[in-house]
């Protein structure tokens, strides 16, 4: 299956590099939203739970843009049929799409998180960065798994743009809740506090649960 995942992933990255449809839109959305928060809240700096909330809600909505586009090329250009005609394990498509979406989110955050720190964050990002990276990875994994599952389901419908946020947002509330709870002490006034271990465990458990659900149902989503 590794070979198939590698082939699919190479195709995904080549398509994104060629079209630049998902990642630039997600980055622009994030930065614009932070600017809007900057003026909307009428504050130069936010801290604690407000900072965590602003960071994660923005990243969540940016992710929705990527989730919406995840299967579009496959659906519109016959990529699904091309894949289904090959003698390969269909789970490879799930794995490749999850990795692709995870990678897109990481690239977005390379720009969006420093932008958040410059535009809004009160405490220094440097101190919180090592722990924040851990939370970003765990949350990205959850968003990527849930997002891929929702995108595969929504692409079969005519109302994809409506179905994706309608399904993904409620399913991703636990991810955002846990990520924000873990992040809050990192953005505390007067320096980063300790990481919320319990919430990090909840996040990891949710990631695992949805990975198992996605593995179990993904084949059925590809059936005609």
């Amino acid at each position, binding site marked *: 299956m590794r070979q*198939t995942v590698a*082939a699919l992933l190479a195709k995904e990255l080549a*398509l994104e590099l*060629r079209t630049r449809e998902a990642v630039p839109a997600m980055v622009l959305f994030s930065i614009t939203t932070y600017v809007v928060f900057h003026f909307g809240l009428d504050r130069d700096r936010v801290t604690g739970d407000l900072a965590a909330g602003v960071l994660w809600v923005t990243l969540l909505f940016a992710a929705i843009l990527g989730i919406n586009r995840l299967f579009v090329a496959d659906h519109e250009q016959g*990529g699904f*049929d091309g894949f*289904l*005609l090959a*003698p390969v394990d269909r789970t490879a498509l799930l794995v490749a799409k999850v990795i692709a979406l995870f990678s897109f989110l990481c690239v977005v955050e390379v720009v969006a998180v420093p932008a958040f720190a410059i535009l809004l964050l009160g405490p220094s990002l440097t101190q919180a960065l090592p722990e924040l990276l851990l939370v970003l990875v765990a949350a990205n994994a959850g968003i990527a798994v849930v997002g891929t599952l929702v995108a595969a389901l929504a692409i079969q419908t005519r109302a994809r743009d409506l179905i994706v946020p309608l399904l993904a947002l409620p399913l991703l509330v636990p991810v955002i809740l846990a990520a924000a709870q873990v992040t809050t002490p990192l953005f505390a006034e007067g320096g980063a506090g300790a990481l919320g271990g319990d919430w990090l465990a909840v996040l990891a458990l949710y990631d695992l649960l949805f990975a198992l659900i996605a593995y179990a149902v993904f084949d059925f989503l590809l059936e005609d």
Partner: protein
Amino acid sequence: MPATDHAVVLRGAGRRYGERAALRDVSLELPAGQTLVVFGPNGAGKTTLLRMLATLLRPHAGEVCVLGRELPDDGYAVRGRIGFLGHEPLLYRELSGRENLRYHARLHRRPAACVQAVLDAVGMSARADDPVAELSRGMVQRLAIARTVLHEPELLLLDEPLANLDPAAAAQVQPLIGRASGCTRVVTSHDPAGGLEGADLALGLRGGRVALLAPASAVTTAQIAELYA
């Protein structure tokens, strides 16, 4: 159920889209190495038949056996042995022809060298690195044919394979998808004379039902024309 020397066996096969029956009670046997040509007006069920044989659609009635395996249960076992050329080329428009073929070669576990070989065979080497979106329909069709035969399938399912090809290109791809390929073939066509010429068995569909099934040598162009009346 099937005799093993038959590449395709259908017994009362049917397929619905919602309430509408696209294919009803189709029964036939196609021996390995032979060619079945399928005629019928638009919406007669030709594409549905091909997609069902390609494992892309589940049969809703009857029995379907391809290359000795029952569908849909054994679909996995035959996928790599089927070459499917539908109305869509199944190529990503933003990628080049070569990139698309490399991708399909990797999915089918074929060596990278086979990509250049099929590009040469369809006469697309010179434009292989151009994005598919920038190619003419005929060129895209040639790339789609290259994709179809890339993994050396035993059974070719060809939906109007010569559409958009000029006479020279049509002649060039004959060794790959024509009778000379040696593959068992199921080909849809709207050209009575041309379709019957290279076929062993002729199937006429109308409204999803079998309206004609006979050896190609016994079918006249007038009978085919009646299907479209």
